[in-house]
């Protein structure tokens, strides 16, 4: 089988779920005739028709709201944000309508809102953000963030089948840069379970999204220096696989968290607090983090490069941690 890119894997997931379950419908801007800004939904209108691939006016509040309404009818809508940055325009529907619906009155919202996130493609302040923590901080939502084509497909399929609203963040830098052969048979990836991408004994690097690639590259360099890093790909940020992180820290006794999200209020803080509470005695050094800057995502290449965590930043932090 030919290798499949992440964006193709996402399309396969949508196609397979639509084929499997006629309650799965797509809604978004330019997703039908045009096939989506990144072509994630290309070909699906022709196959499934106007009623299942719904092009809407430019209105994120409108289309997320409509998707919530469709979910009350027992449908499983998948809403696309053309860029995930625009989810801010539908924020209230996410955090006040969808997130609280089941808790408040027992109205489950089986909804997926997916879209391209992340920097490294010179998209500037409104086409590069990582808004995961806005939603991690809204109880009732689940947040997934794959780093491989395999996971993108498997997690999205699980998200569509989940009875809760799931925000699916797809790193646009990875859309066509990662590819792999996918199993020909049906599979899903469970929400809430991290993956150990590389085993190691000396320290744990907990990361996700595009930073999983940077972290693996850093781990290869560190190995040449005799430092064996264990790389955890979190895959789901809410619910967070806290036990998986604790298990790894109990083995390596050191933890570095790497994320592309900005520093303050990023998930590194939550992970550090969890490890402090549950595995403090196992730690041989401080919990360190490598993150983006506390700034908007800048546009010019040298500025964006400074903003984003680089492989060298990770190796530097890992070496410092390994000294303990």
């Amino acid at each position, binding site marked *: 089988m030919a290798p499949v890119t992440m964006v193709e894997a996402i399309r396969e997931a949508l196609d397979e779920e639509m084929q499997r379950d006629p309650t799965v419908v797509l809604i978004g801007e330019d997703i039908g005739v045009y096939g989506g800004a990144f072509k994630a939904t290309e*070909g699906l*209108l022709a*196959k499934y028709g106007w009623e299942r691939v719904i092009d*809407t006016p430019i209105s994120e509040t*409108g289309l997320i*709201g409509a*998707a919530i309404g469709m*979910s009350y009818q027992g449908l499983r809508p998948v809403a696309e944000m053309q860029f995930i940055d625009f989810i801010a325009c539908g924020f209230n529907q996410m955090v006040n309508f969808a997130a609280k619906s089941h*808790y408040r009155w027992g109205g489950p919202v089986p909804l997926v809102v997916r879209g391209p996130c992340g920097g490294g493609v010179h998209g500037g302040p409104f086409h590069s953000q990582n808004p995961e923590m806005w939603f991690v901080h809204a109880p009732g939502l689940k947040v997934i963030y794959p780093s491989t084509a395999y996971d993108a497909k498997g997690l999205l399929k699980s998200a569509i089948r989940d009875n809760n609203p799931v925000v699916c963040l797809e790193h646009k830098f990875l859309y066509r840069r990662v590819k792999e052969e996918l199993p020909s048979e049906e599979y899903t990836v469970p929400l809430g379970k991290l993956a150990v991408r590389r085993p190691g004994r000396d320290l744990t690097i907990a990361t996700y999204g595009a930073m999983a690639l940077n972290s693996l590259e850093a781990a290869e360099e560190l190995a040449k220096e005799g430092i064996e890093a264990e790389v955890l790909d979190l895959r789901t940020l809410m619910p967070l696989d806290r036990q998986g992180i604790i298990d790894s820290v109990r083995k390596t006794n050191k933890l570095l968290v790497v994320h592309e999200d900005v520093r303050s209020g990023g998930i590194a803080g939550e992970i550090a607090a969890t490890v402090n509470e549950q595995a403090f005695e196992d730690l041989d050094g401080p919990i360190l983090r490598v993150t983006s800057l506390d700034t908007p995502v800048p546009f010019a290449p040298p500025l964006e490069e400074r903003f984003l965590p680089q492989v060298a930043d990770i190796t530097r932090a890992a070496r410092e941690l390994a000294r303990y």
Partner: protein
Amino acid sequence: MALPEMKYPLSREQLLDLYYYMKLTRELDEQLVRLFRQNKVVGGLYSSIGQEASAVGTAYSLEPDDWIAPMIRNVGGLLVKGFRPRDILMQYMARSGSPTGGKDGTSHFGDIKKRHVVSPISMLGDLIPVMTGVAMGGRYLGQKLVTMTWIGDGGTSTGAFHEGMNLAASQHAPFVCVVENNQWAYSTPVSRQVPLKNLADRARAYGIPSFIMDGNDVVAVYQTTRQAVDMARRGEGPVLVESKTMRMKGHAQHDPAAYVPPEMFAYWKARDPIHRYEAWLTEHEVWDKKTQAEIAARIERELKEDLEFAESSPLPKPEVAEQGVYCEGCHTIEAHWERPQAEVQPPKSSVEAAWTVTDYGGLNGDAKPTAVAPTTAATPEAAPTNGAGAPAAAETAKSRSAGQRAAKAKHPARAASQPKGRG
């Protein structure tokens, strides 16, 4: 005097039903004020007084399987949908037996499976797109449904209202939006919310029909809304109905509404929807004193029973706070198909993925393409018609606004965005 001729005739039983729900709303409201003064209400108390006809008459125009989402002053709509005073009492008293088990208060509750009620949230406007989606979802499943929600004059200022109405219009959704113009958005008069005399005029911007009705005349409310509901059900797209009414109390119990001129309250008090309807029922010999007394006694008895029930319900156990953030199999997600599922699966669902452009959009609108993209489906107009096929002949109501005429014209926006048929 005999009953006047009605376009949508109401039986004596239905006319008394309308009265029962309005009067029950009023008495429940007054019971809640007593509980508030006894410190038994947790949080704020929002009154429906003055708007009973607007809530009851609109909800009553729906079929049992239709969907509503109430706003804070639509308790009457919840009662019509089958919720009981005890549900509202327990919501306000935050009891474990309430529909939300104490997780939320007021009219913030719903029932997906049985009553088809979507819970509102406090942020205004968001229900418009949500109920549009309920309508789109039901239509997709082949249901002949209509969805309805209410919004105040102030709520029409929100972006969510506009996005929702525009989406409903562009999707031709079977949705009725009742704009309850109760003259005050908290302390701000409608003139400072909207530079329009009639909020119904907003419909023109969406190319959809609208009506204006006397929101304190329950028969007029029913007749007008029923027409709107029938239009939506026939596949004519969303309809906006403006209800002219008045909020007779402050925003909530804490608010004495000193910003309202006393003369304005006096004007509307003379038009109290319940007193007016009582006089109407007497004038048209629908009831006599005995029937009126029987209804009053029934309401008194039911409220007494429900109050006892509500007060005997305990506050929720603290651990409930930790439960139910996620649905982990506690609910089943079910879709009620009323059409063959094969219609939405390939090969039947497959279409040519191309727009049909029927107007080049020039200034005069006279430049038409000589050839259009090939159609694989029946007619471009046939797609989202609530599964009912071609819309029925146009109504000819005088009360309809100019927006109706606009919607009838095949204006370019609609023609260009209209999906092709179901294939």
